[in-house]
């Protein structure tokens, strides 16, 4: 994704009016937009084309948005997904994010907020890709663990291969960028999710627990992923003595 080329966005929405409105606005913002009216056509398109972002309606005829996203992730496609849905309660949001979505917007939504979120997702990914672009930054080694940020793969200290989710990889990336410094939960939320997607910062804690389980010799007595009480986390590549 270079600065000169418009970012390609796929809009998967069965309602023709809403699809037209979303597409016109994305075009006006300078994105290259493609439309798919249902999940099957979207998956067909995605098999042969690269996109920077997928706007995915949850209630689609045939395969719904959640299963489309799951299929995509199972194929190893990590293109960010912004869900649009008529149902906006917290349980639905969590379901969307569990299916591998990056953000979630309830219908009816505000145009400005929608465009802001699209920009935020693309910016996060731009950052992630650019900081993982060179060989020097693509691989992180700490305490016998080795993480490949481009492939979302890692090998832990005991030689076990690990498949990272995008969020785990992004959190790790943010922490590694600020190795030795304290990173607050709010900073992590902002950098990895954007804003107000999850109701609480507890989500970050859960992801840290998962990272500890993957990479710490003793997850109960962490030496790399340290909790700074009341503030956030500190990551140490060398490990605390």
């Amino acid at each position, binding site marked *: 994704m270079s600065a000169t080329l418009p970012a390609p966005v796929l809009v998967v929405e069965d309602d023709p009016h809403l699809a037209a409105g979303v597409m016109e606005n994305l075009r006006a913002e300078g994105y290259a937009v493609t439309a798919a009216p*249902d999940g099957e056509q979207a998956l067909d398109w995605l098999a042969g084309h690269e996109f920077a972002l997928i706007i995915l309606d949850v209630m689609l*005829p045939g395969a719904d948005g959640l299963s489309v996203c799951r299929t995509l992730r199972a194929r190893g496609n990590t293109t960010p997904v912004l869900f649009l849905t008529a149902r906006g309660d917290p349980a639905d949001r969590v379901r969307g994010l569990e299916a591998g979505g990056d953000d979630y917007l309830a219908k009816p939504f505000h145009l400005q907020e929608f465009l802001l979120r699209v920009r935020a997702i693309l910016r996060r990914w731009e950052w992630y890709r650019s900081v993982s672009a060179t060989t020097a930054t693509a691989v992180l080694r700490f305490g016998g663990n080795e993480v490949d940020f481009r492939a979302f793969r890692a090998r832990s200290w005991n030689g076990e291969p690990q498949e990272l989710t995008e969020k785990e990889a992004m959190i790790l990336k943010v922490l590694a960028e600020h190795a030795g410094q304290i990173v607050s939960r709010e900073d992590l939320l902002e950098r990895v999710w954007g804003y107000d997607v999850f109701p609480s910062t507890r989500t970050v804690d859960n992801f840290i627990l998962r990272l500890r389980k993957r990479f710490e010799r003793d997850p109960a007595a962490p030496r790399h992923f340290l909790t700074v009480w009341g503030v956030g986390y500190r990551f140490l590549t060398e490990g605390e003595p």
Partner: protein
Amino acid sequence: MKATRVFQLTALALVMVSAVQVGWWLFDQHAYTVEKVAAARAAYAEQVAAAQALLDSGAAPARVQQLLSGIVTRDGRATLAPEVAEALTTEEHRRYRQYAWEGSFFLLALAACIAVIARALRQEAHVREQQDSFLALVSHQFKTPLASLQLSLETLALRAPGPEAARPLIDRMLADLARMEQMVTQILESARLERGRVDLKSEPLQLAGAVARVSAQLEERARQERISISSDIAPTLIVVSDPLALDVVVRNVLENALAAVRGAGGAHITLSARASEREVELLVRDNGVGFAPAESARLFQKFSRLRSGASGYYGTGLGLYIVRRLMELADGRVSAHSEGVGKGASIRLTWPAASMDARAAPQQPAAGQETRT
């Protein structure tokens, strides 16, 4: 609602306790009778033994019979009089029969009560469930046109396009509003049908008139979308229905056909009618998206929507449900037929013909009016 439910549950509990009590009472009465009959038999056996002892001690048989009633003596042996033994058995059986009749009557009555209450409770739960899913679906259906409307308005506000560029946005907003208006109408209609609060008339009506009225309302829309509607209906065909219901049925079927052909090239809808001895049939044919033959029954269910596909049709999923309910109430029928997806579809509506005109009605449609848009 809640008080009724508490009352029903209490009544159900009471009736069930009563049933158990009746069962216990039956068991108890039976045991009591068995015990009493056994006691009576034992008492008689004692009397027989006493009589035998008297006879053995040389008492005169006549004296023994006089002293101990119900005992007969013959050849120096005392036995229970056959009529007494028989009366005892008869009484025993009579009591058993009485318990069986009374018990089964009460148990049956109580079982009927339990069934009635349980059915009411189940129905109520079903209604509640339906209302919940209805509300969830309805609010969901409204959110899409609302989102589209908001998006168009905010686009106008954000980008301030010239009149030329604003036109499609305004058209889209008007269409979204029309869509919501149609949804409100359909939801109200189906809610009225649901509660059975419809007071439908049964009067002879000219089918061609209703079709012409509805076609005229949809003419503008059809022309804009380049859809031709042709109808060929004999003015002599008279159906028995409610005038409003007839219009609603024809409108919903026509709107369904319009949605099915939207976006298809050379789209047309054909309406034809014919009469038999007792029925009048309207056939609405289109060359639109069609449906898989297996789905024909599902079409008339509440909230069933066809896959939208390229034509991008959106509906409430209530239109054809309303048609089916209204046709049922008019003692008519409705069925849908399609060769498959993309092969067009036809919907057949059948009303009872007006009895007086039935004989006069022609077997084949006469040359009716032809409207083409």
